[in-house]
């Protein structure tokens, strides 16, 4: 196939930049964190390859959470926003064809889920899921309502800041990433035990979307910019060349 090329290995993941497994302020991590060190191994085809998700899987409303679960054609309730950005790798190159899946609570902070227990009401026209595949430059956008903050059972009075969950599938299985997007200026970001699992303030700030007033649609929707960085790849053709061949 003409578009096939050998995949370079991924850069080493900086595990000191990511949250550690054991973060006691986030109680659920205590019994769910491996106690042994991760075992470092060379990457093989099993890690550097990955499936492709074609644009043909997408429906017209997949990236429109305001309408994609509407039961009667009316919009979901809440502040209308558009989130856009690029999925790039650590080399700064756009990652085309990346699958970006998002999920979130409604404007009152309530999830459409059997295990949800918060008193805030469901919105009958809001499902809370969306997806998009990045364009040739790694760009993506989706339209939604701004989710609400909500309390959660951790310590007796912990609250999540408003956030949108992101699952990103780039072009290799070892690049898989799930993260969360927060909103610029939200004071609750700095009081959240889950946000606090990220070791550095610098790291947390990369998860905060910026209000982009110039891009805002007049009389319609505010716009937030959120870029996502996936592991980069080495690009040398010499990586897997065996000595003597």
């Amino acid at each position, binding site marked *: 196939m003409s*578009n096939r*090329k*050998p*995949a370079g290995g991924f850069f080493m993941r900086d595990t000191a*930049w*990511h*949250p550690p*497994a054991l973060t006691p302020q*986030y109680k659920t*991590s205590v*019994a*769910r*964190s491996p*106690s*042994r060190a*991760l*075992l*470092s*191994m*060379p990457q*093989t*085809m*099993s*890690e*550097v*390859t*990955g*499936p*492709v998700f074609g644009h043909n*899987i997408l*429906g017209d409303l*997949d990236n429109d959470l305001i309408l994609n*679960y509407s039961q009667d054609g009316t919009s979901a309730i809440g502040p209308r926003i558009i989130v856009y950005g690029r999925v*790039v790798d*650590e*080399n*700064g190159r756009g990652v085309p064809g990346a699958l970006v899946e998002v*999920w979130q609570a409604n404007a009152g902070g309530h*999830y*459409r*889920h059997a*295990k949800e227990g918060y008193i805030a009401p469901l919105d009958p026209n809001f*499902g*809370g*899921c969306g997806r998009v595949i990045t364009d040739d430059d790694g760009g993506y956008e989706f339209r939604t309502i701004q989710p609400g903050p909500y309390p959660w059972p951790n310590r007796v009075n912990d609250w999540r800041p408003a956030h949108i*969950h992101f*699952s990103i599938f780039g072009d290799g*299985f070892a690049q*898989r*990433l*799930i*993260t969360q997007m927060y909103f610029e200026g939200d004071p609750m970001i700095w009081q959240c035990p*889950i946000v606090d699992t990220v070791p550095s303030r610098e790291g947390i700030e*990369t*998860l905060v979307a910026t209000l982009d007033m110039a891009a805002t649609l007049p009389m319609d929707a505010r716009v937030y910019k959120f870029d996502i*960085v*996936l*592991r*980069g790849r080495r690009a040398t053709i010499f*990586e897997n060349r065996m000595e003597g061949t």
Partner: protein
Amino acid sequence: MMIPLNRRRESPSQTAGPYVHIGCVPNFCGIEGVYPHDLGDTMVNDQTKGERITVTGTTFDGTGTPLKDAMVEIWQADAAGLYNSPSEIRGTADTNFTGWGRKAGDYATGEWNFETVKPGAVPFPDGRMQAPHISFWIVARGINLGLQTRMYFPDEDNSTDPVLTRIEHQNRVPTLVAEQVDASTYRFNIRLQGEGETIFFDF
């Protein structure tokens, strides 16, 4: 002035949380009509080549309690040992096999099941063959960074596998080998912590 590298840092991971189903397997959690089906729910069709197998398992926490909110993704070669990926340069994989699966644990039991085929062998970077295996990625509430592991088969020769033989604590290798339930069913339980803790990799 030296040449700047202009590297970016990977976005920090955050937990998938208890509601990962909404975004990744919405039909499973009752959000129907948005996507026609959940991505990764079907890996094979009736033309897929190879030996049909079922891989099932449960994820347990450090207290021995099953996780009822975990999501597991797998990635594997086809029966001939080829990946259905643009970066597969050794040949063309079976177009009737996706190689990628995604399942949520059952709400009541935590068990997940994949209908797939037994993978062929894939080489290590130095050219030696690896024993057939399936790559796993596990996310859930309380897991801050998705966990990577591998499942090997109890009815294959794993004795010269370049990954397994490199592991210092050989007494932990059995945590990577599934149990044979019947001729076509394998059970691969994942233990996050404590006795029998599964080996997790940093690739």
